[in-house]
């Protein structure tokens, strides 16, 4: 059930009606959220609902066990059990085929035949997101940051909350879980913000991302794109993936807001970053902070000196790349960003900045770095990466280059204009400072755009494949 589908509109309308009916009872509300979220997930594939439920029940039980356990050994075993179950499910469904195929290729290089069979495994949608979300709960309980909850419906709602179930933001228990235990006060500001986020998110997905997708495919599916086309195609992909993913996050936050819940900001004008570290502070914030708090710090963070810090950064980013997909190109993309973070750290050690200054040079260098990273991310194979990189030396353009530029500019302008506005105003919610009538005109324009392109062939959200 895509957010940009008539089915979801009907689902949400029906849910709002039932939500209104249970306004007098908190427990009923949470069970309603659980039921609706399971129905939402089952609409994708009902077979994998069991994985979501198993993961939720295991971590609910582990949380309770951690709260009661006094021995540190028992606590460690409980946490290990949670990790094994969650990472085991994730590893099997997402990475089994990848590892078997990689081993087969590795042995083939040495002339050894490796015949372990691969299985036709379907990747359950959202598995990377909800397993990380449940693991953050058990880790935080283990670390004593939060108490385990005894209210099962609260916990099930926290894991399965449909606005953010399949593509994030990856929430933290400390932030989201308590909200299910409270009466939610829905204010004018929350409704206004929710409506804006839903419309802007839908616009970014339906109008921007889905119209840039064919432009990207024209380049990345071309046998020999030239440098100019490749640069523009990569720029198109940078905007496509931003529109797609931040659009989804905005819709998730907007629908949650209308229901009275607050989800974390997941994107904060990432293409204004002036260094790689800042980029990761603005892009997919819920994942980058998760990796920082549960992997990087767990490995030792920056406590072991420069060398250990660099190693920890690389491991974190490589695994972060692997999280995105079971392919070596994603690993390479993670390695690329890890190398960028290491280089930035070493640079900062040599040239410490007393204050923060936005510089055009820093911005340009970061965009080139991130842009090449998107090339690695979008390419289909190592051979494709080599072909595309070599294409950067060929400056010929096809006859239809002008039409390509027109398309890219047309669909880039709205998102760049709103981002510039948000940047100048210093707030992602700058549009909400307008009067109702003025904001209404802008929202009407967004609506018109959404209606214009609603009936186009639906392009799946990119991050659903993760």
């Amino acid at each position, binding site marked *: 059930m895509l957010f940009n589908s008539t089915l979801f509109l009907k689902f949400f309308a029906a849910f709002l009606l039932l939500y209104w009916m249970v306004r007098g009872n908190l427990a009923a509300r949470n069970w309603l959220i659980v039921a609706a979220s399971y129905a939402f997930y089952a609409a994708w594939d009902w077979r994998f609902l069991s994985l979501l439920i198993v993961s939720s029940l295991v971590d609910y039980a582990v949380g309770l066990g951690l709260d009661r356990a006094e021995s540190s050994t028992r606590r460690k075993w409980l946490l290990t059990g949670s990790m094994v179950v969650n990472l085991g499910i994730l590893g099997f469904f997402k990475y089994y085929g990848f590892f078997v195929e990689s081993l087969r290729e590795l042995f083939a290089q040495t002339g050894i035949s490796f015949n372990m069979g691969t299985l036709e495994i379907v990747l359950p949608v959202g598995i990377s997101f909800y397993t990380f979300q449940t693991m953050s709960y058990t880790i935080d309980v283990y670390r004593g940051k939060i108490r385990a909850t005894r209210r099962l419906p609260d916990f099930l709602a926290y894991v399965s909350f449909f606005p953010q179930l399949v593509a994030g933001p990856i929430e933290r228990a400390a932030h989201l879980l308590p909200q299910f235990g409270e009466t939610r006060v829905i204010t004018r500001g929350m409704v206004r913000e929710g409506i804006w986020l839903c419309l802007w998110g839908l616009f970014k997905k339906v109008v921007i991302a889905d119209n840039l997708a064919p432009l990207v495919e024209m380049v990345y*599916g071309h046998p020999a794109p030239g440098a100019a086309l490749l640069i523009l195609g990569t720029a198109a992909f940078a905007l496509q993936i931003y529109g797609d993913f931040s659009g989804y996050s905005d819709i998730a936050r907007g629908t949650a807001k209308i229901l009275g819940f607050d989800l974390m900001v997941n994107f904060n004008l990432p293409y204004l970053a002036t260094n790689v570290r800042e980029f990761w502070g603005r892009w997919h914030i819920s994942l980058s902070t998760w990796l920082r708090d549960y992997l990087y710090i767990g490995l030792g963070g920056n406590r072991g000196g420069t060398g250990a810090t660099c190693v920890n950064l690389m491991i974190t980013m490589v695994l972060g790349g692997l999280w995105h997909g079971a392919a070596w190109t994603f690993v390479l993309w993670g390695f690329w960003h890890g190398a960028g973070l290491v280089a930035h750290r070493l640079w900062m050690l040599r040239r410490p900045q007393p204050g923060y200054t936005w510089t055009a040079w820093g911005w340009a260098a970061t965009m080139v770095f991130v842009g090449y990273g998107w090339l690695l991310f979008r390419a289909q194979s190592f051979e494709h990466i080599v072909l595309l990189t070599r294409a950067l030396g060929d400056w010929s353009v096809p006859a239809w280059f002008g*039409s390509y530029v027109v398309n890219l500019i*047309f669909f880039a302008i709205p998102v760049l204009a709103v981002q510039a506005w948000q940047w100048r105003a210093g707030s992602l919610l700058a549009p909400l400072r307008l009067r109702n009538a003025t*904001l209404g005109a802008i929202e009407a324009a967004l609506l018109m755009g959404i209606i214009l392109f609603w009936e186009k062939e639906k392009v799946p959200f990119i991050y659903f494949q993760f």
Partner: protein
Amino acid sequence: MRSHSFHVPAAEVIAMIGWPLGWLALMALVIHGVSFLGLLPSPRPAFDVDRTILLHQAEASRKQTGATTLLVGDSSCLMNVDALRLQNLLGPGERVINLGAISYLDLQAFGTLASNYARANPDTLRRVVLLMHPEALRLRHRDPYFAEVLTNALRGTSTRHSVPPLVWATGAGDLRSRLLSRFVPSPLPGPWGEFYGFSRDLSGYLDENAGSAIDPRTYRADTVSGSAEYRLAPDLEAASKAFRQLIPDGVELWAGITPAPESFVLPDHEARCNAMLTTWGEWLGADQQLTRLPSSLEDRFFASTTHLNAKGREAFTERLARDLQVPEEPE
């Protein structure tokens, strides 16, 4: 404990929803108003390969381009004949325009294009060459959507068929087809995008090549499905007679069948095509039947089972030129 409390006055909610809907309604009124008053350009829904071709050929059918020989027919006519090369081969004094369209249309649509062109070029048009593929000749049902697209393209009106009510009501459909499509060309998919790029570029190619196009795909016999048991559709007789009525007196009608890949056809394909052409030619009342055109060619000349590739187009155009220059003697 209460689940939630709603601290938003109803008037505020109405304002939050009402303002954008109100502005949207105003936009819709303005768009419908200027469209009704004829202040907007005519629709140009060139959103994909098929509609781009249809729109171009519809517009070209009303232009005074002074062709002496007009090619009409399905997509095999469009893709298999290089109009400019044919013109050169036919010699000085000859001008060739290709108004081949797509196979989702029927003889009435092809006839309409020919009739429009004849009206726009009464003094120069001497010959109409109708080329169709056996695949199109056996089709029983046509897609009404494309017939409506062509009709609306010729009238300068919007297509209502399969337009969702909300898209029509808000004026979004008019906004997209009348304005947006003229300034922002649509990307074409797969090999079409790689070769032509965008709808505007495909249209430009048709302009520069007298209405002919190239199918950029590569034929793969191992992926082809379908049957080569070609025959004439039952309703083709009435349609053929109606087509003849659309060709002005004094303009010759030549009819031919375009080739299929050797590996795809049945052993009796040539005999089958000859029989089909004889019967079809009689129904059409054709002045000449192009019986010497090849009914099949080697697979390497094809882009699909119905379209030749660039090399195949070159070879077929030469054969067509020879046949048009030396008509077959009646028996």
